[in-house]
């Protein structure tokens, strides 16, 4: 499965503007062939530990930290461009849209920051602690908080478009497909809402709370529950296509590529299931509880679960691993020229 890809003479990093790459939370799918990282291109450090994933656009990496900073780092050199202090811990992964960076903070604020300078544009106060990552679609930002509300906010000026009480804490990040937004809830329910009105189109219940952020592919919504089951749900009706039982709860978000949906469970097992049937394609025991989403790049699955792993998408075999700090929730950003990683200690790595 190993094959080299040729690197161009200039660094062309693919944008990765939101958690798990895109609004469907696919977790990657860039068509790169596998190439093992050979060396550290640079290593930087941000203030405070990092629980979120980095995002990337136009050669700038954006990283949030528990010390309350959003830090912009030159992806080629590792040099810090600017920092913004939100004055509250940040668990959320930022999202990028037009010239702005959006993220939530533990004090319940949604922040809009100018991407080029780090200047504050506006902020909006939500009702509770906000860890879930915002998502931007059609000039609207969607995010949930621990008060159980889902919010739709105008990305230009921060005006509230609608908010909906879902009755359970929201630590799951929204995904968007067309005019529909999807989110999981601490009550155990998965919701589908109309993105323009916030009207609930359907609700499907699982047996426990939901931490996992759903992903959408080909009319199916994929999400894990703390009831130990992984679900494939019809995006139109909310009917359950199939469900797969793991050994312990599932808080990690899935990544989808082709016929495979990949997710980890708290028993430390990473699995790939067939998206149509739910049939097991492979399972790989990694030992430590998996709470981080996987990212898929071509034929490779990337995961940070204690160690950082690269696995073969076709059979789950481990093709590369490294001890690069410690991470439980971050997701690597995989581009043609580099893989970017963060650690709980606040380190940021570029591997090439």
């Amino acid at each position: 499965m190993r094959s080299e890809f040729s690197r161009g003479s200039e660094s062309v990093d693919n944008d990765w503007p939101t958690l798990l790459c895109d609004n469907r939370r696919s977790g990657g799918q860039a068509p790169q062939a596998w190439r093992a990282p050979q060396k550290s291109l640079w290593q930087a450090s941000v203030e405070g530990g990092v629980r979120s994933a980095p995002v990337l656009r136009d050669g700038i990496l954006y990283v949030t930290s528990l010390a309350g900073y959003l830090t912009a780092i030159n992806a080629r050199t590792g040099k810090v461009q600017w920092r913004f202090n939100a004055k509250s811990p940040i668990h959320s992964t930022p999202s990028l849209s037009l010239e702005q960076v959006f993220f939530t903070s533990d004090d319940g604020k949604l922040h809009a920051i100018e991407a080029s300078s780090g200047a504050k544009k506006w902020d909006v106060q939500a009702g509770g602690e906000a860890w879930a990552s915002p998502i931007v679609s059609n000039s609207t930002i969607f995010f949930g908080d621990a008060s159980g509300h889902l919010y739709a906010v105008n990305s230009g000026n921060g005006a509230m478009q609608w908010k909906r009480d879902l009755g359970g804490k929201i630590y799951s990040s929204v995904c968007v497909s067309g005019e529909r937004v999807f989110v999981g809830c601490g009550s155990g329910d998965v919701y589908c809402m109309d993105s323009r009105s916030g009207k609930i189109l359907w609700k499907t219940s699982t047996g426990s709370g939901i931490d996992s952020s759903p992903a959408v592919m080909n009319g199916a919504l994929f999400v894990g529950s703390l009831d130990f089951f992984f679900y494939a749900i019809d995006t139109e009706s909310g009917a359950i296509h199939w469900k797969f039982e793991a050994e312990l709860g599932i808080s990690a978000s899935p990544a989808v590529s082709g016929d495979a949906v990949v997710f980890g469970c708290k028993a430390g097992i990473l699995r790939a299931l067939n998206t149509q049937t739910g049939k097991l394609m492979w399972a790989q025991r990694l030992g430590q509880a998996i709470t981080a989403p996987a990212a898929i790049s071509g034929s490779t699955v990337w995961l940070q679960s204690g160690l950082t792993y690269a696995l073969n998408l076709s059979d789950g075999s481990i093709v590369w691993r490294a001890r690069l700090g410690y991470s439980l929730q971050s997701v690597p950003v995989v581009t043609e020229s580099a893989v970017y990683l963060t650690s709980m200690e606040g380190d940021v790595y570029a591997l090439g």
Partner: protein
Amino acid sequence: MIDRRQFVKRTCLGGFALCLDHWATSPAYGQDLIPPVPPIHVTEPVGASRSRLAMPGLFPGRVIEIADSQAIVNNRVSQTVIRGMLEHALRELTGAKDVREAWSKFVEPKDIVGIKINPSGAPACCSSPEIVREIVAGVHSAGVPLQNIHVYDRYAYEIDVGSYQTLVPLGVRVVGVEDRKLDPAGYDANIYCEANFFGEWETRSYMASIVSSNLTKIINVPTMKDHSAAGVTGCLKNLGYGTFNNVDRSHRRPFSFTDPLIGIMCSVEPLRSKAVLHVMDGMRMLWHGGPLNQNPKFIFPAGVLMVGTDPVAMDTIELEKIEAKRSKESVPSVWSRDPKSLTDNGDEFYEDATKNLFYRQPHHIAAAGKLGLGTSDLKMIDHRVLGAGG
């Protein structure tokens, strides 16, 4: 702002006095010539009167144990079964006619209540979110607003692995005192235990500010686990080492000063006064490799719950249970002092129940008893075992 509290320093000669009988008979210490426990200095507030609910609490020496084979099925804890078990046990403990009356003996509507969980073995063996939810419901039934109930532990990242944020009811705050990066911000600089065990550079352990300043009552929710250094981790260790920082320094292979440090920490005010009830989660009993082992072969789905106000009595019963299970599995006692059982290989320790990293120190329980925190004499413990639905 000037802190107007006054603080006093006391020196616990207990480091010697509490443990002399045990240490004098321990061949390992004679063979390995470890230094004696150094004096442990405690700096704590003065002038605060000890609460009538202070450990050993309203029911010294009483331990209520309840088991139900349906409490944990297919590795899932049943919310419904747990509810019945906890209510039954609390009524037995307090003599109250209903569960609301039982909870009202420990908390009042004006209280700020902390639920001290043990997430360190998450996800395999940690305080069950189902039990935490029932405790939240019980405290709330006594008139405490949900916003004044905090689920907390020292380590935020371990709480995250357990998904407690998502699983507790709306309104309840989940607080991690510190992140993986050592951060003194969550600790009270005025309340600490000080000792130099192994020549460490930082000799102080500070009390978490949430305990010293924010909370008025604490419900302790330990798990039932073996502990490689302390012997078992139960009520006392979950409270002491879950309240003070920089505690790993008390044990360096193969030696452990968890005895007497655990008990001394639990005796420090205001922790002693605020910890009013203990609900021990024995849904999954970890009988080897604690506190972090995730190896399923050492996790026994015991389906047990214990409640009481006396942490020493509860840990004494827990120790008996861990010992009984280890004996049944034909592995060495937690009291073993055989140097051949020691290993420096963590992987071996996590796989082989005959191996350990330290000479375990379960005597910390009796030492805590000598500090007045409760009863460790089995003959004096009022241990009541309830059956399912009884």
